[in-house]
Structure formats: structure tokens, C-alpha cells
């Protein structure tokens, strides 16, 4: 992920002058609004790249459309006869929109990114890297390890055997359903917090933010 320190959430209002025609334009634009020339990567966050409000519930279809539209406009073929500087700008802009798109379309990465923009620390950043090996391993509950190991053994057995043992099949199937259920529950919980964060007042927002940090921290 690109360093967040270059990002400035208040920068949309700051006018930037086009390198080509000298007309001031909104900083988040990749192309000058006056002369349409490609601009160097703006120092804005991923939401601003796609002119989206900083929300967790986003319209993925229109995000994809916008990404494709910008990708086409930045395609190297369009800059084959452009100046060296313009070619560089278009490449750097492409890298930016690729990173932005990959981050925003993924529900967990989007949440993590927004929380970091809001100043939260997630996972290892506040758990600390310097804990001893034994301590780190012991964070995985022993019964979960047993369960995962046993499931892997059963899956191996199913893969190798010609005759599928129906009892084993149903056992593994049930485990699969159990894990999907847990995943769905987590997804539901996360989406509930998204709505609270997007639409809530300051207090609701703070509470939702804490909940989401806790949810994401459970991955470690």
C-alpha cells in the first residue's frame, strides 16, 4: 500500500495550476479541466481519485466503470507521440488508479484503508512486532489448530481415496458450512458497521470505527 503520509484529506479545495495551460484546476483531477492535458498524480486519497465521498458503502459497478474509463484515457497508446513528461505522468497516474481501484473494490482492504485515513492503527502496528515467537504462536488457540489440522487430514483422505467415504464427506461438508456461516456473520457485522459509520453522527461513527478496528484485528 502506498504511504499514507502523502495524503491530505483537505486537499480537494487547494487549486493546482496546470503545467501546460496554467489554468488552476481541482487537485484531484488527472486531466486538466481546461486543456485536457494529463496531470502528474495528485496528492489525494484513493476515494478522491475516483471522486467518491469517504464512505464504506460504495457502488462497486460505478467504481469499476470509472476505473475502466480512466484506464482507457491513460492508456500508453494514447501517449505514444506525447512528450516524455506526459508519458511519465500517464504511467504514474495509471499506477495510482490501479492501487486505488484494488484497494477500494475489496471490502476488507477498503475498510482498513479508510480506518488508516481516519488515524486508526490496525493489527501489527499496535500489536507490536517485537513479541517473542512463543507468544505469537500461542495467539492461535490450540483447539482451532487441532480442528484445522484434522480437517486437512480429512481433506487429504478424500482427495486420495477412490471411494468417497460418505460419512467423511458429510463431516467435511458440515465443517465447510460452519466456516461459511462464520464468515457470513463477520461480513454482516462489518457491513452493519459500514452503515453506522457512513450515516451516523460523530459518536456513532467513533463507536463504529472502534468496532471495525476490533473486527480487522481478529485476523491476527
Amino acid at each position, binding site marked *: 500500500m502506498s504511504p499514507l503520509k502523502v495524503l491530505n484529506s483537505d486537499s480537494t479545495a487547494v487549486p493546482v495550476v496546470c503545467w501546460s495551460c496554467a489554468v488552476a484546476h481541482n487537485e484531484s483531477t488527472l486531466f486538466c479541466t481546461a486543456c485536457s492535458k494529463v496531470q502528474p498524480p495528485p496528492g489525494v486519497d484513493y476515494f478522491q481519485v475516483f471522486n467518491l465521498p469517504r464512505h464504506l458503502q460504495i457502488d462497486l459497478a460505478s467504481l469499476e466503470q470509472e476505473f475502466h474509463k480512466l484506464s482507457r484515457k491513460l492508456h500508453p497508446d494514447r501517449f505514444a507521440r506525447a512528450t516524455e513528461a506526459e508519458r511519465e505522468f500517464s504511467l504514474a497516474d495509471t499506477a495510482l488508479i490501479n492501487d486505488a481501484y484494488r484497494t477500494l473494490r475489496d471490502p476488507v482492504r477498503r475498510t482498513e484503508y479508510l480506518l488508516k485515513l481516519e488515524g486508526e492503527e490496525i493489527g501489527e502496528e499496535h500489536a507490536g512486532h517485537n513479541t517473542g*515467537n*512463543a507468544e505469537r*504462536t500461542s*495467539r*492461535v488457540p490450540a483447539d482451532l*489448530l487441532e480442528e*484445522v489440522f484434522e480437517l486437512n487430514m480429512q481433506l487429504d483422505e478424500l482427495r486420495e481415496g477412490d471411494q468417497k467415504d460418505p460419512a467423511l464427506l458429510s463431516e467435511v461438508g458440515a465443517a465447510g458450512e460452519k466456516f461459511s456461516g462464520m464468515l457470513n456473520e463477520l461480513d454482516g457485522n462489518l457491513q452493519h458497521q459500514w452503515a453506522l459509520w457512513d450515516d451516523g453522527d460523530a459518536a456513532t461513527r467513533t463507536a463504529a470505527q472502534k468496532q471495525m478496528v476490533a473486527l480487522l484485528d481478529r*485476523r491476527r
Partner: protein
Amino acid sequence: MAYSEKVIEHYNNPRNVGQLDKSSTEVGTGLVGAPECGDVMRLQIRVNPETQIIEEAKFKTFGCGSAIASSSLATEWVKGKTVEQALEIKNTEIVKELALPPVKIHCSVLAEDAIRAAIGDWKKKNNVAETAEAVAH
């Protein structure tokens, strides 16, 4: 980055795959896992009660080539060592031997953890006090 030849060799011909009788007092079992990648590793040792020498070691790992190679190498290295000598094995030595790239270092950490866990289990079974060295880790 491609796997080193040593990793591929261990992956194709893993040493000491299998299991030992978990209930035996001479056997220590270590089960460890990395939640980041989903790898799980079981490493078992059988210790001679007279000499405290690890006479047999078995492993079973579900994970990537580097995790399998790391645990395979770990079983080779602990065999013939005393319990205390085996505790000296560092993950950095595994990294060096297998030429693991930075993104696979956690596999070697997992193997070291598995050795420690197996020895810890054996010590618990046999009422051997944890050494200061082991506790510090």
C-alpha cells in the same frame, strides 16, 4: 521469486513424514499454525528417557513448499540431538540452509516454534522443568 533447489528437493522428497504415538510419554507433540497463511504444522519427537537424545522425529505439514521444506529439515536436524541441543536450532539457520526469500521467513519461524512446542510438550509429560532459555522465548 522461485523456490530454491533445496526447498524443491525437500518438497519432492520430504524426510520423516508421519506420526508417532501421541500418548506415549517418550513422545512430544508440537502443533503450530500461522493464521496469516493458514499453514499448520505438526512435529513430533521421541526422546530416549536415559540419554535425552531425540531418536525419532516425524512431521506432517499442510502448507506451502517452504513450510514443508522447513519442517522436513527441522526433523532431520533434531534427530540425534539432545533436547537441549535441539532448542538451540534457530529459524535463521533454516532460512540460510534453504535460501528462503524474505516473504517465506515466517515458514522457518513456524518450524522453530514447532520444535519448541514438541519439546515443551515432552517436558510437560515428563515433569522436566522448563529451562531459563526456553522460558525466555
